[in-house]
């Protein structure tokens, strides 16, 4: 807790609703190194864990009654949250290449959002194939729909080189990437982050701005400042890259 005096002044002002600046800068560097994602700190919003990111994205992107593709089997907490927020969940089957896009289109081609876990599908651990990734991005571009990439455990790949994040090949800017510290550091602090598409700043979308201010009540700057110390000095990226080649960090 030795860091607290240095951030003492921060409690006298309203915090940046996007999150603690140095943490977002550190994350932008890590994401380029570790996940192949080119983004600026301005695109990153610190959230109250993945569920905070999903809630924020849903508030900004969807209206009640919209349909969302969810993987089945999948993360029940996420589909429960979306159902509670008044959107319809289309349960899409998963095979050895990940979510079945053809089945999803047959079920609900006009869905507004697809929530996927491309790195290691939860709970089957299947990695989404490149053709499936391209089909998913193609659908989102055609329908002007959105994709949330839940990369909760993208760092934990043990055999061969991991595929870069889906976000890294998102040329049409349809993907909102959600990352989490719950698996790499600790789940109890409830810290995650959401990357918005580029050129899609919160200021250009009033609904997004309101949603961010409204939802940041659980996301205070102190833990973020402490986190920044842990994640800076490239420690976090080293942890994510060196061990991929079997070298302890």
């Amino acid at each position, binding site marked *: 807790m030795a860091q607290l005096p240095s951030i003492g002044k921060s409690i006298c002002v309203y915090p940046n609703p996007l999150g603690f600046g140095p943490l977002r800068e550190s994350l932008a560097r890590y994401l380029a190194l570790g996940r192949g994602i080119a983004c600026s700190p301005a695109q990153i919003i610190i959230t109250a864990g993945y569920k905070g990111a999903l809630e924020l994205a849903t508030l900004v992107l969807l209206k009640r009654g919209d349909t969302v593709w969810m993987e089945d089997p999948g993360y029940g907490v996420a589909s429960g949250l979306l159902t509670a927020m008044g959107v319809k969940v289309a349960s899409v*089957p998963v095979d050895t290449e990940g979510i079945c896009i053809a089945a999803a289109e047959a079920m609900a081609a006009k869905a507004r959002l697809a929530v996927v876990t491309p790195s290691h599908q939860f*709970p089957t*651990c299947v990695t989404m194939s490149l053709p499936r990734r391209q089909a998913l991005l193609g659908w989102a571009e055609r329908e002007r729909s959105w994709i949330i990439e839940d990369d909760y455990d993208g*760092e934990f790949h043990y055999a061969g080189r*991991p595929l870069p994040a889906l976000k890294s090949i998102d040329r049409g800017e349809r993907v909102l990437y959600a990352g989490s510290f719950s698996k790499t550091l600790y789940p109890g602090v409830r810290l995650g982050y959401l990357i918005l598409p580029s050129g899609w700043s919160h200021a250009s979308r009033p609904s997004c701005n309101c949603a961010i201010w409204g939802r940041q009540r659980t996301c205070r700057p102190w833990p973020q400042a402490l986190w920044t110390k842990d994640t800076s000095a490239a420690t976090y990226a080293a942890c994510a890259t060196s061990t991929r080649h079997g070298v302890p960090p």
Partner: protein
Amino acid sequence: MRHLYAARRAALIDALELTLKDTLELRLASGGLHLLAGVVGSIGDTVLAERARSRGYALHALSAHCRRARDQNALLLPFTNIPETSALLIGRQLKAAFAYTPR
């Protein structure tokens, strides 16, 4: 961290092959924070998960993560909190837990 998890994962795979080969069929992927193993035979994954949980092992049934999907009789076995030196013991204890039927 990934190095540690890779070692723990490999140790649990070896232990399960030695102790539960007749009950579980590992479906190995390249990553993740748990192993997925199909259940061999007619017993349900929720029954095995419940037996393990009653002995203190936090296993999950794959079918419990399904909304409409069917025929998903498999277990999720977390490995991140099992030290390499404990893996074999855990395998044996799981085998005993799976065989246990409460009266």
